């Protein structure tokens, strides 16, 4: 068995083990169904929800918001990171702010966003974007830091312009770091949007969880959470696999 197959198998076994353990704990009554239902029940409930099409609107709503946030976080974080990288003094001043930013409960600024953007989906998308953007920026800065100077010199030898250098040398070279940034931006966009929906929205998966939560409908709540968990882990795993492939091709022995 190849190493990557072994890793995949172990990962699967770990997941299966965790699910099985949870199932047993629930079935044995150690965990009350009033707090947590067995994974099999979650799956069954989720299948029902998906089959009935009840969740379709919420899925589209949330999926759209997450996609928009992700696109904005990456689309803005990348150029911002590139710009800030070119201005070392600005960067130095910004450095403590970027990491500190994550301590701020941004959803508190929802009223401010409503004031600026109106009462629609936009404030939530901005919240999701705002959560992912600094991570993307930090990753971009990191990546640009690690572009080997000799490649930049090579660009000059080939008489490339600034944009050409950026497009054909700097960004490809920093790609692994940009990748990490995208993964983080995805995670944060999911967290930002769904947590935002949980607190503020009247549609979307986050709202579905919140509605079920307030109504003590554990089956629905855990079913939707399972869906979110599955989507988040699945997307992440996909990105991870893609990244490993990319990295394996490029990894220096």
């Amino acid at each position, binding site marked *: 068995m190849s190493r990557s197959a072994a890793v995949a198998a172990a990962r699967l076994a770990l997941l299966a083990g965790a699910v099985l353990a949870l199932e047993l704990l629930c079935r044995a009554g150690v965990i009350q169904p009033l707090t947590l239902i067995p994974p099999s029940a979650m799956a069954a409930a989720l299948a029902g929800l998906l089959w009935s099409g009840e969740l379709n609107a919420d899925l589209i709503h949330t999926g759209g918001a997450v996609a928009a946030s992700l696109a904005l976080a990456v689309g803005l974080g990348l150029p911002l990171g590139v710009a800030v990288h070119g201005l070392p003094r600005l960067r130095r001043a910004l450095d403590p702010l970027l990491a500190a930013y994550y301590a701020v409960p941004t959803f508190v600024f929802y009223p401010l966003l409503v004031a600026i953007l109106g009462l629609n989906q936009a404030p939530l998308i901005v919240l999701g974007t705002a959560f992912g953007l600094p991570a993307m920026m930090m990753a971009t800065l990191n990546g640009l830091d690690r572009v*080997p100077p*000799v*490649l930049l*010199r*090579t660009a*000059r*030898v*080939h*008489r*490339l312009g600034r944009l*050409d250098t950026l497009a*054909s*040398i700097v960004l*490809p*070279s920093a*790609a692994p770091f940009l990748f990490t940034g995208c993964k983080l931006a995805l995670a944060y966009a999911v967290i930002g949007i769904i947590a935002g929906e949980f607190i503020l929205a009247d549609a979307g998966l986050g709202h579905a969880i919140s509605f079920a939560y307030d109504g003590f409908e554990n089956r629905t709540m855990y079913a939707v959470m399972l869906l979110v968990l599955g989507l988040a882990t699945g997307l992440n795993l996909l990105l991870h696999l893609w990244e490993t492939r990319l990295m394996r*091709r*490029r*990894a*220096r*022995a």
Partner: protein
Amino acid sequence: MRPEARPRVGPGTREAPGPRGTAGARDAPGPRESHAVLSAVTRVYPGARPVAALGPVDLDLRAGEFFAVVGPSGCGKSTLLDLLAGLSRPTAGTILFEGRPVDGAVPEGLGIVFQEDASFPWLTVRDNIAFGLRRAGTDPAETARRVDYALGFMGLADFAAAYPAQLSGGMRQRVCIARTLVTRPRLILLDEPFGALDQQTRLLMGDELLRLWRETGATVLLITHALDEAAMLSDRVGVMSSRPGRFIDLVETGWPRERDSRLVAEAGFGTVTARLWARLRDESLKAIGGPGATA
């Protein structure tokens, strides 16, 4: 075929002018047209404690010659190459390439292979080699033709679709050399291009470089820290002093244009390396200021 090795060791004759030799007459190295000229060039790295890295240096690189530079570590060899390539500006002095001043931009017609591995890890070997041609907008058919030729020529044909990570260090160096050569530079600057290789392999690679040089007729400036490499490959060897580097000797080797690494077994070869070594021992002692200096 074992070429006749005819070492002609003597003081530098860099000011000897004369008519340009014909291609046929090249076997006997002699004065030719200037290709690049450095006049009283110095370079000081500014800072709280400015570092005088180089010079003053005068150098007249002749068209079609193979010129090697040796010198103690940190003496300014890479700095010299940077200046010549227009990657940085001299603090004083002037640099001419094909008659035009080099002013902080890399002039057209110049190719560089850096000391470090500069292959692009995200491109295949083929795309790496084609990089410069594509950027320059060369016709795709012509690009493909030249790249294919270079792949064969460099012994990389089987690895055209491989990524640099799948290559050994020496193969990566060859990719960088090929990437530079396909653009057909008229002046090739090489900064310890075989640094990643063991001594035996670097001599073999040297043979390849010689063949290339013969075939293209380009001017080559090779920086190396291996004295036998310098002695074997070049028409002239410039020996630099410790920092700030100046040329303290110019050794004309007098090898035939047709030569290869078997030169090293010649008795006369040892005479050239011994002279280089003798010139450098004291400079190295000054340069490292380490244990040798106190011994």
